[in-house]
């Protein structure tokens, strides 16, 4: 029978921060593992496409420093999933750089295991042709050219690559794109713990104190795996887990609360019970894991779709507000006409806050009673220069447009900033959100072991097993 296994989850996303007092209280419990999820597709396609993190360097380094100094000095393994937010190679390298800086600054020595999540586009294309890659949620299949245009394609790894690195003696494991629970579940499963319970616990711990009440994305919690149950404990005095808060969290961001698909199988929560243990602790039982006939991983990629420029302005004139939809349409038509003449191509979107800025076409309350409107002019074009050109033209046309009934003839827009236009750089669109069948879920992912001894870094070879 495997012993009790304690997991300390410092924060919901690496870089969001956590109170040191909560973390230290968790350490007093003698955790077997410190693990954190560092990523999400929530912030949209830009971060995966551009290879940039959505979290800030200072915040991420601060969280890592606390986790690594305490973890390494006490011999507690530290596992980080979905490095850099999106978990592609540049995200992982960025996070690896921060770990190496901390090792040097704090004079820490440890074996660092890296698991890359990047997948070759040709592997994806072969899978699309053979039917081994299937779209999720009604996304259409991309063309070959679109797949090849994605700067990064990642697959959500399961437990296997992390377990391989743990078996190879890595004390700190940094993974690329990772199924969220895997960084919590891989090591206890390796020690014989139940797959269903460990994965379900990981599902909750990946959001740290969000599942407690009051919820927080920046506070630490402790999970304890036992033979046929697990327990959740909040680590700060103002928070507690309740059966309701824990059960409600199971719904969060999921399309089906009872069947949670992941690499190699699904969690079946139909028989789960949440029991109040008192003192803010909750016990969970009854989770089942149902393996799928064929092991599949989820692919993610974003392709470049042009460059964006924005301009932000306010409108206070009630005559203009009263006919804003009509005027916006007229401005667009005027801009289109000018662009046709210059052979510049692009798209203009008006986000009109106070009218339908939040819900767009889904907005049904168009009473138009706001006394002021916020206007974001969004332009998308094949190059940044063209996007800038169209934005400039749209802004100046809107500013001076002589709409019907106008009596304020000096200008239609209030700009809060100078310069008024903001070049946003490249823009991306999710183009792979597919399942891919894999024969060997360990060998799909490249691994590397780096030995760190304070300032001395000894890189290893990149291998697939």
């Amino acid at each position, binding site marked *: 029978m495997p012993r009790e296994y304690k997991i300390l989850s410092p924060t919901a996303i690496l870089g969001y921060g956590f109170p040191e007092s909560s973390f230290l209280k968790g350490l007093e419990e003698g955790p077997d593992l410190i693990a954190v999820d560092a990523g999400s*597709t929530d912030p949209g396609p830009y971060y995966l496409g551009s290879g940039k993190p959505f979290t800030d360097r200072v915040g991420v380094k601060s969280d890592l420093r606390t986790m690594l100094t305490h973890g390494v000095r006490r011999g507690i393994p530290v596992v980080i999933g979905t490095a850099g937010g999106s978990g592609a190679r540049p995200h992982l390298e960025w996070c690896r750089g921060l770990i190496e800086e901390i090792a040097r600054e704090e004079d820490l020595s440890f074996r660092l295991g890296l698991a890359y999540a990047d997948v070759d586009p040709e592997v994806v294309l072969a899978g699309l042709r053979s039917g081994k890659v299937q779209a*999720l949620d009604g996304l259409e299949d991309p063309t070959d050219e679109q797949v090849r245009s994605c700067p990064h394609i990642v697959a959500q790894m399961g437990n296997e690559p992390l377990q391989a690195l743990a078996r190879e003696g890595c004390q700190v494991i940094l993974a690329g794109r990772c199924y969220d629970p895997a960084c919590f579940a891989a090591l206890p499963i390796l020690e014989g713990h139940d797959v269903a319970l460990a994965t379900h616990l990981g599902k909750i711990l990946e959001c740290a104190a969000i599942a407690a009440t009051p919820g927080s994305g920046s506070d630490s919690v402790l999970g304890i795996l036992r033979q046929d149950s697990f327990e959740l404990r909040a680590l700060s005095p103002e928070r507690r887990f309740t059966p309701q808060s824990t*059960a409600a969290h199971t719904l969060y961001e999921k399309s089906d*609360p009872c069947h949670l698909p992941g690499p190699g199988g699904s969690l079946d929560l139909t028989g789960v019970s949440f029991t109040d243990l008192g003192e803010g602790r909750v016990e969970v039982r009854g989770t089942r894991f149902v393996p799928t006939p064929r092991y599949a991983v989820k692919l993610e990629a974003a392709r470049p779709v042009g460059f964006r420029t924005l301009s932000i302005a306010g409108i206070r004139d009630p005559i203009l507000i009263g006919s804003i939809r009509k005027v916006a349409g007229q401005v667009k038509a005027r801009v289109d006409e000018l662009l046709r003449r210059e052979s510049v191509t692009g798209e203009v979107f008006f986000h009109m806050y106070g009218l339908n800025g939040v*819900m*767009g076409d*889904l907005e049904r309350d168009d009473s138009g009673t706001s006394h002021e409107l916020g206007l974001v002019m969004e332009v998308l074009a094949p190059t940044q220069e063209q996007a800038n050109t169209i934005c400039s033209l749209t802004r100046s046309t809107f500013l001076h447009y002589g709409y019907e009934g106008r009596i304020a003839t000096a200008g239609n827009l209030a700009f809060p900033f100078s310069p008024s236009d903001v070049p946003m750089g490249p823009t991306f669109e*999710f183009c792979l*959100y597919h399942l891919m069948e894999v024969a060997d879920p360990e060998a799909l992912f490249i691994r590397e072991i780096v030995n760190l001894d304070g300032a001395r870094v000894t890189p290893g070879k990149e291998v697939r097993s």
Partner: protein
Amino acid sequence: MKNLREVAQVIRSKNSSPMKLTLDIIFKDREVFEEVRRRELLTPELVAGAYQISPEEIEKVLYFEPARAVKIGMRRRVRSGSPGDTDVYGAQQHAPLLGLELDL
């Protein structure tokens, strides 16, 4: 008739993937939740009516007993973060639900 706000503790929307939204309603009271489930008071048609969209855009209505919760899947019209999207996280698409009246 009762307004959903009177009987719900949580009403929220969020992406469940870049192509889909999930609408969650968590009821305050177990009996009300059971009644809503038993009498199928929250139908795709009712939710579609609140948004004034076709019921085909509402994918499914699921019940999760341990949380007294109903979950409704809804297609996004624009992929998260694609040009023209208005809500990358999908976190502010719940407002039409606040006006729902249930036959309780």
